[in-house]
């Protein structure tokens, strides 16, 4: 989307379709279009937010760009290497640089593995420590870094609270000294008070260790608090993308406007123009023609029914995919660029 070269990770027109098999001969007849043409670039050192309703493909995008699943089409470049084309052991060096923290801290730890063992495992896989005692020392340090202590090494996951487990998951992710971490709704399973602590911890770690985050959430308040730039996802595509501040203060895409208006705002006078979103999100198997948001969009026109909206830069660094704002763009004489795809 931009020409800046300081990207840690870039995706180019990324697709992930899950085939749905039916019939005697397992003929493929339909696809779940979980990621349907996504081009994003994540800058070194930033926190990149990804927001959208449940089922819009956030997790799948995260998995695809970490190469946990093979993209159906398109490419992912990490530090300039096309990791989407790599397989098997050639991926291993990149596994060391990219890590992931999942939403559910209960399920993302092996229940039969002690915390110490879980922390040492990645070090062993990537041969990070040269001696056993060094590895142990590092494991202890990691735990202290996330606010736990060395005594916890011998314990098992079920002996910890949700927040503590999420700290452990973070510590394990850090064990390989990664530069990039996908945080897939890291706090949505936690109490609000614990959420705040974890978010603070993540910010501190980011500064201390020079990390880059992809922060996935459907909680707008958390996104606003954490992210430098934010992309809004709808049915497998990024429909709006801007610096977080701009996005929240001046959303352009009808979907974003609707999303933001559905966030409870303490002061009623500051409510946005739109009502809450009407209707349900369509199935990712049968994505509407033209603009995929048109079934729920209050501004939908004939054009939206037939033509996929182009990607336009409404302001510097603020992109949307919508026909509606073309008129706006024309009025404010902002250059219209063709769709990147």
């Amino acid at each position, binding site marked *: 989307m931009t020409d800046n070269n300081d990207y840690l990770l870039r995706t180019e027109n990324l697709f992930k379709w899950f085939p749905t098999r039916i019939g005697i001969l397992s003929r493929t007849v339909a696809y779940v279009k979980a990621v349907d043409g996504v081009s994003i670039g994540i800058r070194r050192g930033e926190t990149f937010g990804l927001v959208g309703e449940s089922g819009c493909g956030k997790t799948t995008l995260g998995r695809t760009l970490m190469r946990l699943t093979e993209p159906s089409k398109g490419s992912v470049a990490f530090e300039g290497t096309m990791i989407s084309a790599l397989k098997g052991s050639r991926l291993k060096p990149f596994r*060391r640089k990219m890590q*992931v923290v999942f939403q559910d801290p209960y399920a*993302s730890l092996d229940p*039969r593995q*002690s915390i110490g*063992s879980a922390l040492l495992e990645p070090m062993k*896989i*990537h041969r990070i420590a040269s001696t056993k005692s060094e590895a142990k020392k590092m494991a202890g340090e990691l735990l202290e870094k996330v606010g736990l202590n060395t005594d916890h090494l011998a314990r098992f996951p*079920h002996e910890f609270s949700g927040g503590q487990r999420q700290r452990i998951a973070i510590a394990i992710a850090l064990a390989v000294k990664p530069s990039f971490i996908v945080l897939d709704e890291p706090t949505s399973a936690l109490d609000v008070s614990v959420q705040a602590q974890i978010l603070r911890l993540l910010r501190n770690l980011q500064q201390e260790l020079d990390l880059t985050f992809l922060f996935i959430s459907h909680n707008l308040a958390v996104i606003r608090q954490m992210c430098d730039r934010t992309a809004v996802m709808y049915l497998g595509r990024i429909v709006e993308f801007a610096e977080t501040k701009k996005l929240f203060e001046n959303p352009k895409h009808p979907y974003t406007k609707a999303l933001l208006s559905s966030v409870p705002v303490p002061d009623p006078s500051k409510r946005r123009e739109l009502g809450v979103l009407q209707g349900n999100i369509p199935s990712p198997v049968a994505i509407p023609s033209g603009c995929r948001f048109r079934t729920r969009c209050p501004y939908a026109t004939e054009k939206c029914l037939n033509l996929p909206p182009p990607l336009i830069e409404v302001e510097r660094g603020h992109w949307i995919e919508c026909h509606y704002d073309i008129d706006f763009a024309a009025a404010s004489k902002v250059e219209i660029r063709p769709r990147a795809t």
Partner: protein
Amino acid sequence: MKASKPEGSQSSDRYGRRADLKYALHLLRRNPIVLTGVAISVASVLLALLSPLIVNPTSWDQQPLNLRLCWNNPIVNWQIANVFNCGGSAVYPLGTDSYGRSLLQMIILAIPVDLEIAFEVVASAVVIGVFFGGLAGYKGGIVDEAILRVTDVFLAIPGILLAIVLIVVLGRSLPTLTIAVLTTWWPYYVRLMRSQVLSEKEKPYVERLRAMGAGGIRILYGHIVQNSIYPVLVQATLDIGSVILTVSALTFIGLTPSPLLPELGNLSNQGIQYIFTAPWLILFPGLTILIISLGFNLLGDGIRDVFDPRLRR
């Protein structure tokens, strides 16, 4: 599986597992049925291990004619007209068999024979199940399909017949008996392990391990299998009894290496011919099978209750 664990974690693991084990033992202790099962199975294993010390393991030759089918037990009287006492000072607590050997001694010699086969069959079935079932569940696709179709074939034939044919063709010996029973047994373990792995591999920690760069072998055998093996081990415990039943049934119907061999089914086979003249000959070997098999079933049942995730936590 051990090798895949970082060395540094050994001591800590042991600590945690010990706590786990303690809790399990605590639950076991509260359950009298399970305790009975533990007692019987431990006793039978001990008896099997000590049996060469109690009875000379090579002393199962035929004895003189006059020692056959005697009931030299002064305490118990069968009250059957044709049960006779062979005289002499020797006491046979469970009588003698049709070859003139002490039935008690033969049973003591037979227990290790049956238990050994049972352990060999079950252990091999578990290993095969963990390997192929794990592979099928984890890899999916064509590997899964191929392994499943092979088990289909073996599950569509009554196991006992396959075992009979195998023994007839391969010759009657204890190893053949083991192989024949194993051939009918392994598919269940492949299926069981596969279904366990299928549900376990969907858990997020598996994806986290992949993201960490862990290889398939480490994830499957170091994590998934370890987390899903309990139902398999419970089944294995229950199956010790079932294998003994199958093996003794096979020898009972005459598929035996030697009619003299002290083996529980074999001993019962002699008994059925003397069912009216020497009822002990069928009674005690069968009872021994029943008790051992019951012991392992009680144990397996108890372990299942203890490790049932719905009852724990």
